[in-house]
């Protein structure tokens, strides 16, 4: 018994080590459960937010009936899906039909093993981190293809064909953009164009934590490195990742006006909800790749321009203030709730929810807490910005036609990313001599 406690405590003494790196089974399991729970909550929240934000973009109210402002709508949806009849088409390939949703969910959740929420807040750190993420997330297309084929029906088959063609096409441009970002991790020059620093380019890294640490060391987020090269790479990735996750405006595999629901037309109930879960966690996964590679991962905004203890203190207040703001929003809406006795329970519930949020905010204001979870907050905030962008795209852009989609992928993104890779490599190659020259001139 004592040994177990010592084993559990031993990890807490190791600073800046992931449970995987420390080789601690207990904390690795705890982290896996935490990430899984957090992801599920994020998907539920995303479900509500997407419907609400999309509705407000279209000047509607969105869900309003279940709970105050429809806050309990995702729970009602989940219950409905679990209780629904599980239909399997008569001529479906039983085994493949059964296994397809699990492939998609497994692929979508496994990638979170290496997502770095902070220098020590990741389940583990692999030295092939980014490769692992790209590889495992590319497996999800297998699930989509098999789902479409196993349904033995026309719409799903067409959806699956579209999906596989689309994902294979955009993976190429995406991979090249990622390579140009990885190239930057090998440099030591500081700032936008790499002036000064510790000399010649070294070996780079594929590890997710290593990539963020390289940005920290160079004092610049890779989206700004070699401006505008980093920005272009980031843009290519940001377009390709929307196509990879089959979201609007690239949602041809499930284009409802043409294909009913695309590859998951024949799925219902729990199996369909697995596809839903996988789609949203895949969106979070690719967003965290983008955040890690280009937007400085867990680093707070402006780590160099606004440094010093004052700015550190101000930025450390952000997590707490965010939750306090959300709590205040809840209380503001408590005041705006209808004063009818039928709404009494909902009003009390909303007030309780606001109180919980405010309490979390107050706890996060404690310096001891905010210094430990600040990195998780900044990472999640950046990912949340991407999630908002996803909803925004869906509210803004009309769907591409399939030939347009292929044209964008092969004739625009692929040549651009190839050229970008070559130029970035050339710049990285001559960077030390530029730095040397600038030192002599200035």
């Amino acid at each position: 018994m004592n040994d177990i406690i010592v084993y559990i405590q031993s990890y807490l003494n190791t600073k800046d080590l992931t449970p995987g790196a420390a080789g601690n089974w207990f904390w690795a399991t705890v982290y896996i459960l935490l990430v899984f729970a957090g992801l599920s909550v994020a998907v539920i929240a995303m479900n509500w937010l997407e419907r609400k934000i999309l509705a407000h973009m279209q000047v509607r109210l969105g869900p309003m009936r279940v709970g105050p402002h429809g806050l309990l709508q995702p729970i009602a949806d989940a219950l409905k899906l679990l209780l629904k009849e599980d239909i399997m088409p008569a001529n479906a390939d039983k085994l493949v039909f059964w296994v397809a949703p699990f492939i998609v969910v497994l692929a979508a959740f496994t990638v979170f093993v290496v997502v770095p929420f902070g220098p020590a807040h990741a389940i583990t750190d692999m030295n092939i981190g980014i490769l692992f993420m790209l590889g495992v997330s590319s497996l999800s297309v297998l699930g989509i293809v098999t789902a479409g084929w196993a349904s033995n029906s026309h719409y799903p088959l067409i959806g699956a064909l579209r999906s596989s063609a689309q994902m294979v096409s955009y993976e190429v441009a995406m991979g090249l953009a990622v390579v140009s970002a990885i190239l930057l991790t090998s440099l030591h020059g500081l700032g936008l164009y790499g002036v000064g620093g510790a000399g010649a380019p070294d070996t780079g890294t594929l590890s997710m934590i290593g990539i963020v640490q390289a940005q920290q060391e160079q004092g610049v987020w890779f989206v700004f490195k070699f401006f505008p090269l980093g920005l272009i790479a980031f843009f290519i990735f940001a377009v390709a990742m929307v196509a990879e996750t089959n979201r609007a405006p690239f949602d041809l595999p499930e284009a409802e006006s043409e294909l009913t629901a695309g590859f998951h037309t024949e799925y219902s109930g729990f199996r369909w909800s697995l596809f839903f879960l996988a789609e949203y966690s895949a969106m979070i996964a690719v967003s965290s790749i983008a955040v890690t590679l280009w937007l400085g991962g867990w680093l707070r905004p402006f780590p160099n321009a606004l440094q010093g203890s004052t700015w550190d203190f101000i930025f450390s207040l952000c997590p707490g203030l965010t939750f306090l703001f959300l709590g205040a929003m809840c209380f503001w809406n408590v005041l705006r709730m209808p004063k009818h006795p039928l709404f009494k329970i909902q009003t009390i519930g909303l007030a309780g929810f606001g109180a919980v949020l405010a309490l979390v905010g107050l706890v996060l204001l404690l310096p001891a807490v905010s210094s430990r979870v600040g990195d998780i907050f900044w990472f999640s905030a950046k990912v949340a910005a991407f999630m908002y962008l996803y909803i925004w795209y869906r509210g803004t852009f009309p769907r591409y036609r399939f030939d347009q989609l292929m044209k964008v992928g092969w004739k625009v993104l692929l040549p651009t990313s190839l050229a970008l890779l070559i130029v970035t490599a050339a710049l990285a190659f001559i960077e030390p001599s530029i730095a040397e020259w600038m030192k002599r001139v200035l």
Partner: protein
Amino acid sequence: MNAPVATPFFFYLLSGIMLIGGVLVITRKNAVHSALALITTLLCQAGLYLMLYAPFVAGVQIILYAGGIMVLFLFVIMLISIERTMKERQFNQQWLVGIAAAAVLGGLFIAVYTKGKTLFPQGRLTYAESQNTQDIAALLYDSHRGIYMFSFEIASLLLLVAIIGAVVMAKKRI
């Protein structure tokens, strides 16, 4: 530092699944089932690479074979009418040549298994896990250690020929 993950248990588990998958690939009549079995085999192979402390090779195996090539396989298979192929008799008339090839390969395996220690006197070649990516890059491109540069370029040339061939065959007018 840590307890090694590469224990015999995982080796037997992975190779067992691989063997089952491999047999399923050639015995299933349904081409999609064969493809799925092949994917399982390839993923287990990636696991074996991980056990050899070659994470980069494992990652590339997943991205290229399981994620890329097999998707294209499935893409093509889905366009074939499965009902018709299911009714067709499986044709493997080359079984004499097949047995001969299998016997030679099996003999090779047995020879390596029994005489491995004398054939390869250096024993096991281990790379530090954290350096695998860099080591492969050095073996491919380094000016002193890069002994595989030439074969790598030959393979690239072969792929280029295949790409050009595909374009020529697919396009009516170039």
